[in-house]
């Protein structure tokens, strides 16, 4: 994989601090799974946190907590979550887990407009974001659009071009909310992306915004 477009350093710091919303966390973890360069940057960002935390003062822990913990050692076992059946590298691990082993072709995609299908991914109630897969048909030109909120996109297959360059498998578009762009999908295959956005309330209905020029809603 030849990755050209990487994560914003601010995103990596937030990821290392564990403060990203769940939807964004999945997209970032997915990119890191494929991008050794960003994985190294995320590791380094975590060092900053370690150093800061090392300076924290100590709060005494009760003897009861200490003896309870030591008393649990004999029965403590490592509960690992079962690994989802592997897609053989087609998908990053964090996404594979959410799809419970299904391949992209097996999903029941919802057709939203000619050439555009979406598939929503489940998140916990605590998440204020939205996570979905987007499939855009070969050769489709998306209307020029801004995002009106935070958004990170990871390309899983196919490729598109916009004024920032070519985005193909493994690339991320970690764009500022003020940025407008007009992606055009390459002709030879559909482009499938994993997208995290802010909640629709702040985000004013993402599909509607994007589809407005296409289907006139």
């Amino acid at each position: 994989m030849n990755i050209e477009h990487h994560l914003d350093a601010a995103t990596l710091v937030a990821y290392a601090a564990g403060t990203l919303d769940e939807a964004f966390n999945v997209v970032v973890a997915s990119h890191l799974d494929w991008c050794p360069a960003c994985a190294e940057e995320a590791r380094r960002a975590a060092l900053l946190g370690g150093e800061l935390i090392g300076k924290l003062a100590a709060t005494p822990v009760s003897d009861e907590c200490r003896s309870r913990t030591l008393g649990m050692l004999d029965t403590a076992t490592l509960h690992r979550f079962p690994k989802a059946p592997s897609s053989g590298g087609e998908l990053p691990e964090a996404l594979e887990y959410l799809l419970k082993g299904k391949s992209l072709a097996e999903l029941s995609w919802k057709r939203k407009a000619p050439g555009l299908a979406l598939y929503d991914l489940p998140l916990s109630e605590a998440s204020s974001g939205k996570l979905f897969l987007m499939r855009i048909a070969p050769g489709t030109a998306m209307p020029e659009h801004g995002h009106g909120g935070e958004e990170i996109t990871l390309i899983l297959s196919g490729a598109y071009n916009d004024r920032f360059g070519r985005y193909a498998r493994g690339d991320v578009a970690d764009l500022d909310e003020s940025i407008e762009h007009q992606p055009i999908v390459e002709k030879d295959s559909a482009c499938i992306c994993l997208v995290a956005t802010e909640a629709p309330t702040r985000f004013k209905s993402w599909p509607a915004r994007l589809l407005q020029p296409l289907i006139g809603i």
Partner: protein
Amino acid sequence: MLPKDNPADPKTEDLAAQRLVQRVARNLDREAFAELFDAFAPRVKTFIIRKGASPDLAEDLVQETMINVWTKAGYYDPAKGSVLTWIFTIARNLRIDRIRRESSRPVSELGDFDPPSEAPAGEEILARKDEARSVARALSKIPPEQMEILTLSFIEDLPQAEIARRLNLPLGTVKSRMRLAYGHLRKNLEQPA
């Protein structure tokens, strides 16, 4: 014994802590574990309380974190970061999981450990010591307004948008301060003094 709080030399502390983690991983050494508990649990507790947890909940999470240290000791990899960073990643992820339903994969499964690795070679340990020094140096050079953002992120666990609201700054400013702070670190790691 490890120094209990604000150790004068984090590097020495880390090497000592690495040996304790190895003893736990290899021999299920309870004494080594008790030393790790005494060295790290009090700071883990501070970290959890800073986020507004009650003392009872904080001790629950301290217990859960340290039990994870016991069961996952074999997965700790010194090449990835200090013992302290590892333990606090576990604590942070457990704290995040507490507020989530079961529907998604717990964060603690995603990032806090990787498959077991071989014991690091001497060279790697040396490189890590240099790295720890570079991180400390980078942190000492970060100006207060960037440091504030880092503290709110790593210690208070506030998302970028929340930091922006609290400091009454545009989101873009919060992000650019994070980028600048990270830039200090990168510079110090790439040009070790």
